């Protein structure tokens, strides 16, 4: 199967191509040097061509997503689209059904999406859903931040055991990397409490959040995992939390990266760059975070952009969700994952005339516009916490057009003028920046640049073509066109197959699930497993045999090798 894409205005920042007319040759699902004359041809006609979109942080599958569906039947009433000969039915907006997840991402030109949090114990559920999400490649990050074994080994300063536990946890959950949510706080929420800073001591374990973060970063680099530690900071959702965020970023200096990427990814900054001391003097400190990013290496972030309208907040951060539910008088679901973490789900409606929401809207944009290097800020909405992922085109238009931002600001609560810097920021991103924030940057942060996020020879043939002629459009003025073009790709090509044409799904191949098989010396695993077996005997409600994600749950695996032992790549 050969395919040639001609006359595209290609934006491929990783390979230094910015709008040049370049032909792309595809053979057997990969990008190659050239194809034979019998290849089928797509004439892009000067339109915008990028690699398939990569989303490094989205909640698309697993226990809490499904809790969101169960508690929000009213959400399922929106976005309904009946089945066709090719597609199954779509439902939902903030918590769509599994099919709509895949279709809607593909329609926007996205081909790779990572679920941002799965507890090991709930991983079977995550994979059951991932196996039903069509088209896109995916993977899931595994929670380690409040796990009992993690905290035991951190206290004992036993890095070998911690690395062995992380490697085993990734295998047990078929996970891709280390996610760390409110480290220590998840455990304390089991007692109705929370940690208030990086140096609080977690009772019964005698460790601090700072120690957990640093130890996990070290274990991550010992194992040479493709992705770095992915951190949801402590104190999230509390005014004044930007100080905790900055202090967490500072911890990254203690660890050297094992690869050409960050050692710490601090996620959804919209929820943790809050200034002030209470809701009355609440303000944006996104500029401080951006300033830090501009003067440091080894730390990356994503926006977690707020979108006005309906959203469903869902996180492993149990205490913050309790506070949210009390504040909003909203529905609340609380979860306890035994020895591993907590969780909570609360629906929310972001309103333009609510000062807090207007200020939060500005935060993600400020971060993206004030940070000089787009590789350090990925475009996300922390779906569905800041808003559903279908709004990425809206975010792209906001980043590319100051005019659109000014129009938007006119409709917002006046607090946006006094408590944020957004009205005075004139920077407008170009297609190259957007390609970084949605493709090359995400792939680099995830450690997948060998096959994802670019259009060089050897990359997966994941390509999107948008109905925009970059040399004939002024994104600043024609922002509505930009938005609608990114909403429905002219073509999305996944693994060399056309899956979307003119915004309509044309084929639904099954994507793969990435997971990391990290090897550690067998004797280390054996020593560590003694502790784990003890934990199962004494505390877990299920047995070890019913805990592991078996191969039957991951029928389209893509295994990425890592580990402390150098591994021959076969």
């Amino acid at each position: 199967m050969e395919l040639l894409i001609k006359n595209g205005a290609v934006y491929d920042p990783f390979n230094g191509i910015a709008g040049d007319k370049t032909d792309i040759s595809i053979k057997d699902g990969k990008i190659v040097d050239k194809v034979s004359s019998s290849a089928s041809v797509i004439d892009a006609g000067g339109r915008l061509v990028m690699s398939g979109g990569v989303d490094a942080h989205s909640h698309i599958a697993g226990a809490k997503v499904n809790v969101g569906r169960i508690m929000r039947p009213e959400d399922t009433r929106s976005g309904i689209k009946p089945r066709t000969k090719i597609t199954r039915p779509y439902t939902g907006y903030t918590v769509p059904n599994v099919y709509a997840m895949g279709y809607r991402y593909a329609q926007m030109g996205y081909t790779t999406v990572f679920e941002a949090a799965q507890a090991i114990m709930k991983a079977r559920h995550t994979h059951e859903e991932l196996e039903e999400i069509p088209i896109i490649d995916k993977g899931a990050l595994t929670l380690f931040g409040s796990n009992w074994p993690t905290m035991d080994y951190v206290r004992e300063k036993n890095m070998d055991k911690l690395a062995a536990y992380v490697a085993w946890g990734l295998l047990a959950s078929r996970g891709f990397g280390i996610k760390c949510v409110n480290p220590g706080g998840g455990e304390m929420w089991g007692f109705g409490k929370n940690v208030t800073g990086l140096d609080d001591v977690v009772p019964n374990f005698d460790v601090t959040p700072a120690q957990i973060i640093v130890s996990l970063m070290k274990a991550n680099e010992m194992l040479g995992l493709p992705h770095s530690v992915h951190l949801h900071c402590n104190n999230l959702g509390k005014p004044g939390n930007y100080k905790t965020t900055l202090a967490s970023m500072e911890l990254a200096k203690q660890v050297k990266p094992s690869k050409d990427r960050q050692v710490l990814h601090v996620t959804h900054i919209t929820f943790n760059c809050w200034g002030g001391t209470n809701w009355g003097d609440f303000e944006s400190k996104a500029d401080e975070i951006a300033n830090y990013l501009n003067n440091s290496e080894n730390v990356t972030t994503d926006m977690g952009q707020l979108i006005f309208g309906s959203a469903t907040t869902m996180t492993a951060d149990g205490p913050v969700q309790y506070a949210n539910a009390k504040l909003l008088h909203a529905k609340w679901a609380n979860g306890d994952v035994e020895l591993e973490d907590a969780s909570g789900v609360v629906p929310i409606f972001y309103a333009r005339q609510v000062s807090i929401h207007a200020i939060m809207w500005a935060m993600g944009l400020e971060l993206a516009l004030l940070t000089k290097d787009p590789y350090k800020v990925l475009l996300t909405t922390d779906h569905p916490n800041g808003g559903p992922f279908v709004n990425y085109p809206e975010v792209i238009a906001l980043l590319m057009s100051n005019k659109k931002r000014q129009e938007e600001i006119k409709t917002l609560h006046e607090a946006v003028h006094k408590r944020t810097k957004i009205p005075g920021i004139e920077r407008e991103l170009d297609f190259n920046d957007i390609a970084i924030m949605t493709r090359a940057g995400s792939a680099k942060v995830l450690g997948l640049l060998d096959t994802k996020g670019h259009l060089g020879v050897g990359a997966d043939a994941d390509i999107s073509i948008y109905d925009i002629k970059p040399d004939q459009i002024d994104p600043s003025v024609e922002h509505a066109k930009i938005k609608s073009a990114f909403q429905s790709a002219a073509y999305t090509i996944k693994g060399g197959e056309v899956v979307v044409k003119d915004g309509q799904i044309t084929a639904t191949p099954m994507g793969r699930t990435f997971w990391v098989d990290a090897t550690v010396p067998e004797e280390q695993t054996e020593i560590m497993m003694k502790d784990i077996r003890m934990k199962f005997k004494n505390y877990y409600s299920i047995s070890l045999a019913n805990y592991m994600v078996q191969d039957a749950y991951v029928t389209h695996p893509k295994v990425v090798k890592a580990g402390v032992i150098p591994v021959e790549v076969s």
Partner: protein
Amino acid sequence: MQTVTIKPKKEIRISVEAENISPDKFAGKTEKDILSMEAWMGNHKTTLGELFSVMVEGSGPAADTKIVMDGDFSRIKRIGEGMTAGLIMIKGNVDMHLGAKMSGGKISVTGNVDSWAGREMKGGELIIEGNAAYYLGAGYRGETCGMRGGKITVLGSALDFLGEHMCGGEIIVKGNAGILPGLSNNGGKIVIEGNTSRPGSEMAKGTIIVNGTVDEMMPVFKAEGTEAVDGITYRKYTGDVIVNGKGVLYVK
């Protein structure tokens, strides 16, 4: 002025989704247009023309459109859904979701209506001469706001959960109401002339007046003495105290 008369052509046993029967959809349309409008019958797509005979006189905008329905419509759902203006007069019974999400105009029914009539309605008027079933003027599953405005009058009785999650508007029931009227409501006014049980549970705002007997009171209200409303003296309660509610419940 446009008048559209609709009569069933045959006995309909399988439920029909008839959201196209609305003054907004019919305004300015010819008989032929209306006959070819889509309607789902169970899992089978059909047209209004397959099910009904339609007669159109005159032509006009939605506000000047009157739909007269004569016959048994007890399997026809979603009549007048989302209508903004005009008039629907139904001589007979209708199925669920009558006038759901309507924001203007008027619907009158001589017979009985099934559940969810006036669901999430924002304005306009609904007059039911027979009885109403469950969830009159309520919000559908998971919704935080049911009826937000407008007026519903039931001359007969209503079943359980009327006005659930109501945020505004007015519901008057001349007969009895089932259990838990005004459950979790957050505004609006409910008047029940007959008997009911456990009114106003979880209410945060709004007013409920019961002129008949209340079989059972929820133990979540604070007694506030007596107060006269329109010349009638009631026992006044506020609550639901469990949710810090500011709702008012008047019981004779």
